[in-house]
């Protein structure tokens, strides 16, 4: 037996000791997982978008019918508009407020670590659960915000936060911004801390005003990290589902439906898997645009570090 098994064993040994062999072996668990539960579903999702699959029935290939149907569907276009509006406004606000908060925290403050810790809380707590708190804050009758404003005499009637289309859009955006600020602020703070204080001081000695120091020193050095942070932020805002699902479920009259919630609505409670998948696939071009943006953001970083 030994003469037979020996070359096998040595092949195994050679395989395991070689860089590529062992690399392959080590990659195997993660690769199998991601291929089965990420790559395959992604492909399956694209395929489902071309079928009329329903829950409990595998679909027939129907070509672009789903997409043609969506093209004529005003609710779909409303959800595209809502998604873009939601993403743009919420991201701009998150960026502005997050950067402001990061700049505040980057100063010489007592209990800096304490502030940093409590500011991250909205991001740590499960979104659904904090969204429930917002649901209660935005209650049509017992909203605490309405109560305070009534008390101060600013309004005469309770605000119907989630019942009116534009109020509902602004309310869910406010909740999204609330949840997104900590991530932006803490990430940008980490970026700010890598900028040496001496650069700012040198600029100040040369007579730069605080605003000039901010726009000509801090901001350029922060650009690469801003690009990455905002790509993440845009991606997660664009594909947001939880907040909308808890606060409005897309209502009133579809005014707050995002593409993700509409896709869920059509696919799971509605049973139209094919149509839901088509809506999800329609999100991909936007996501690719965001990823490309991130890619070029990272490219710029190399150039700024003087790598080549």
């Amino acid at each position, binding site marked *: 037996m030994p003469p037979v098994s020996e070359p096998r064993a040595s092949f195994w040994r050679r395989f*395991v000791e070689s860089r590529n062999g*062992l*690399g392959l072996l*080590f*990659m195997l*668990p*993660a*690769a199998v*997982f*991601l291929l089965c*539960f*990420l790559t*395959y*579903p992604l492909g399956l999702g694209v395929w*489902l978008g071309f079928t009329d699959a329903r829950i409990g029935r595998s679909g027939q290939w129907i070509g672009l019918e789903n997409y043609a149907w969506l093209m004529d569907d005003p609710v779909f276009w409303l959800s595209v508009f809502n998604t873009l509006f939601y993403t743009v406004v919420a991201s701009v606000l998150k960026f502005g*407020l997050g950067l402001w*908060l990061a700049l*505040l925290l980057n100063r010489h403050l007592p209990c800096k*670590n304490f*502030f*940093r810790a*409590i500011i*991250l*809380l*909205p991001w*740590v*707590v*499960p*979104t*659904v*659960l*904090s969204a*429930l708190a917002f649901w*209660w*804050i935005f*209650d049509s009758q*017992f909203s605490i915000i309405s*109560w305070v404003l009534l008390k101060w005499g600013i309004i005469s009637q309770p605000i119907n936060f989630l019942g009116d289309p534009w109020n509902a859009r602004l309310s869910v955006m406010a909740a999204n911004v609330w949840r997104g*600020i*900590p991530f932006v602020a803490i990430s940008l703070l*980490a*970026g700010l*801390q*890598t900028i*040496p204080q001496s650069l700012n*001081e040198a600029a*100040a000695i040369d007579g730069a005003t605080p605003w000039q120091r901010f726009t000509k020193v801090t901001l350029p050095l922060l650009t690469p*990290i801003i690009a990455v942070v905002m790509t*993440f932020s845009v991606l997660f805002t*664009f*594909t947001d589902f*939880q907040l909308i699902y808890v606060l409005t479920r897309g209502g009133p009259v579809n005014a707050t439906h995002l593409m*993700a919630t509409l896709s869920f609505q059509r696919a*799971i409670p509605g049973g139209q*898997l094919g149509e*839901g998948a088509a809506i*999800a696939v329609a*999100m991909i071009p936007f*996501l690719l645009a965001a*990823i490309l943006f991130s890619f070029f953001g990272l490219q710029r970083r190399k150039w700024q570090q003087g790598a080549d």
Partner: protein
Amino acid sequence: MTDQTTITDDHEGLEQFESRTRRIMLVWLPLACFVFVLLFPFYWMAITAVKPNAQLTDYQNHSPFWVVGPTLEHIKYLLFETSYPGWLWNTLVVAVCSTFLSLLASVFAAYAIERLRFRGARVTGLLIFLAYLVPPSILFIPLSVIVFQIGIFDSKLALILTYPTFLIPFCTWLLMGYFRSIPYELEESALVDGATRWQILTKVVLPLAVPGLISAGIFAFTLSWNEFIYALTFISSSENKTIPVGVLTELVRGDIYEWGALMSGALLGSLPVVILYSFFVDYYVSSMTGAVKE
């Protein structure tokens, strides 16, 4: 991840030239507003959770911001008359199992990409990063079909197997950064001493990467604790639900909202991650900023 050192210079720099009032107006006032807005929903959640029903909606006779005679009635109701403890247990099991699985797969993957540098390692690293950017919102429909086909629909296994789709890319990416910061010389000298790759990984690299493992672990745990869309889609029976799904779908009945019970459900469901977070703040921050910085 390579530059873990945050600059901690205690000198005040240019700030010492600012007047006190200017400092209060420009720093402390905005900061106080931020802290107030960011924390108010939690305060509101907590105060509602302990308010007796009579005070809950009676803003005329009781100030809504405070509570007279707090009650544990809502929490008691939650723990003894609903399936809440079961959801808590489900969430814990799912989070622990999927975190463990993801960490295991990620350690090997990250080591292979970063240190074995097999052919195509760079491309694999990039693919892992791209995998992290694939959102659950576009995966849940096909995944629900798959979960149904392999017969694990409405079971904890469905969640344990699907959560790693977003955990593995994240953990691998994070650990790659940690492994990169471990000097090559340590591994080389172990190799010269005759250690195998396996021994190098378990005896040299992993002990040095413990902070990275903790970061990745608690972060993955939090992400799976907070996950919602997969749990909502793949689970239908009440006894298999996780906290976020259970609280939202089972405690909200019709038009009568039991705000006290809802808020105490939200409060109790947040506590585990908040406690974990309070112990490991720095690990959280480093994993969050680490994932972004690379």
